């Protein structure tokens, strides 16, 4: 039971990462590798702020801003520097490795004995693991609500059309470079924020904590899509959170099968690969057909 509650909490906290990546991967329609650098960047900034006795709220805000700056740099390299987005992301991600070491001073900084968002009186009073459920739920609800509002505004629509058809967007007067940069800043800001929360949940920041997280984020997005099928944009945003929780359950099951946590990146990659290939399989194996037949009444 504890493990299930913990998985839901982790799923909610990690969902922020999935939702953030959704903005670039699904809406702007390109893979942003900066993520693997901004996630530990957010963690590093938050942890060092906390060890310097800044409040959790300020630490998390700083983590967001640091992520947004990294996103800005990727955006500028891509739009003004004309560097392909994949490479631009990898450049900033690589640069972040050194920056993060500079910020942290060592490859691992513990939050032991520090005041974090989880040490507030209210959260400490909750049953075990429910603190991360509460923090995760509140944060992801606020972020999702803000994004849903944003995407329904004139600016948000201009942002969506930039990913959907940049030629058309420019032909109706939308500055697609600006929209791309704004998208990368918001996305990476949220990824920094996510890193800040995960570090506080784990109790430390580690220089290597970004490795493989793009796969985790993509898994949340893809699982949500595979499980829930055709949805509106708003529903798809919410599906990412549910996908993130499902992903945690899958990991839980796999770990219970006897795999070690060292295998997690391998397992994550396999899960994502399977989910990505699922539409292909279901076509060749006629899974849809079989399932529909199985659900139909016998006449």
């Amino acid at each position, binding site marked *: 039971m504890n493990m299930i509650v913990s998985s839901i909490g982790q799923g909610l906290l990690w969902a922020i990462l999935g939702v953030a990546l959704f903005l670039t991967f699904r809406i702007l329609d390109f893979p942003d590798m900066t993520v693997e650098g901004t996630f530990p960047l957010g963690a590093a900034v938050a942890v060092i702020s906390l060890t310097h006795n800044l409040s959790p709220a300020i630490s998390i805000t700083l983590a967001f801003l640091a992520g947004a700056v990294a996103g800005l740099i990727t955006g500028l390299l891509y739009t003004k520097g004309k560097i392909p987005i994949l490479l631009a992301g990898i450049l900033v991600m690589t640069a972040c490795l050194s920056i993060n070491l500079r910020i942290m001073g060592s490859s691992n900084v513990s939050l032991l004995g520090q005041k974090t968002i989880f040490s507030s009186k209210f959260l400490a009073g909750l049953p075990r693991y429910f603190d991360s459920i509460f923090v995760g739920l509140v944060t992801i609800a606020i972020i999702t609500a803000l994004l849903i509002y944003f995407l329904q505004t*004139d600016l948000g629509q201009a942002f969506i059309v930039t990913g959907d058809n940049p030629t058309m967007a420019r032909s*109706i007067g939308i500055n697609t470079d600006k929209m791309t940069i704004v998208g990368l800043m918001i996305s990476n800001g949220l990824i920094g924020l996510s890193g800040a929360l995960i570090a506080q949940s784990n109790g430390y920041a580690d220089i290597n904590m970004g490795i493989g997280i793009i796969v985790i984020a993509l898994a949340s997005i893809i699982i949500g899509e595979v499980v829930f099928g055709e949805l509106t944009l708003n529903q798809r945003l919410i599906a990412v959170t549910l996908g993130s929780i499902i992903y945690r359950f899958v990991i839980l099951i796999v770990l219970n099968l006897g795999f070690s946590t060292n295998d997690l990146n391998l397992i994550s990659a396999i899960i994502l690969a399977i989910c990505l290939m699922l539409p292909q399989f279901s076509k060749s194996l006629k899974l849809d057909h079989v399932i529909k037949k199985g659900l139909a009444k016998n006449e």
Partner: protein
Amino acid sequence: MSKTSAEILKLENVVTYVNRHTPNENMILRHLDLTIHRGDFITVLGTNGAGKSTLFNVIAGTLPLDEGRIQHLGHDLNKVSPERRANFIARVFQDPKLGTAPRMTVSENLLLASKRGQRRTLRPRELKQHQAAFRETLATMGDGLEDHLDTATENLSGGQRQALSFLMATQQRPDLLLLDEHTAALDPKTSEQLMKQTNETITKQQLTCLMITHHLDDALKYGNRLIVLNAGVITLDVSGAEKQALTKTKLLEFFGNIE
């Protein structure tokens, strides 16, 4: 109205190259001059490679000039970005895929285009409030678009997408409308219907328009001015009665002489 303000667009001595400063350097537009007056409906003819698309790209701003000057109502346009020019220059592409956002609905596309020239802010878009007006506008196109307000445009036919693109280009009454063979990808019947609708809208709203076409018949039938582009310069420019006197035979003769 003063003389200059009637000149919607003026191109002077325009030169563009591809592969400039390389052994493969090729001059596309060769010192081209063109003045477009308010209310002009110009059909543009020319063989492949004559520079028609390049001319449109230069006007829309997606291709910078290598030499020359381009002016809008007397203001220099050379350094104005394509996005800024889109505030007063609208364009319909030949490829139905280019003109609309595939995963967005018909009304979302229309709403986005209706904000042409306005600041896009964090105000709610108010899609529902526009639906009735959109339905009315769509009904004028006569291909059933009004029943597809909430359909993603990727699920529309090519003809419907071009009709939608045309509406999106004209609904804000641009100073200049660029039609880049916008009916070429459609079947003859759909193409004719859209062409008829195009002519009606342009005439009724008195839009200024530049239309590339490969149909000599269309070029003769529509518009009040006809230009022929060849090897990067305008070799024929007729308007009014002179255009009306032009026949297909004479045009073919003219093209024959070029080659």
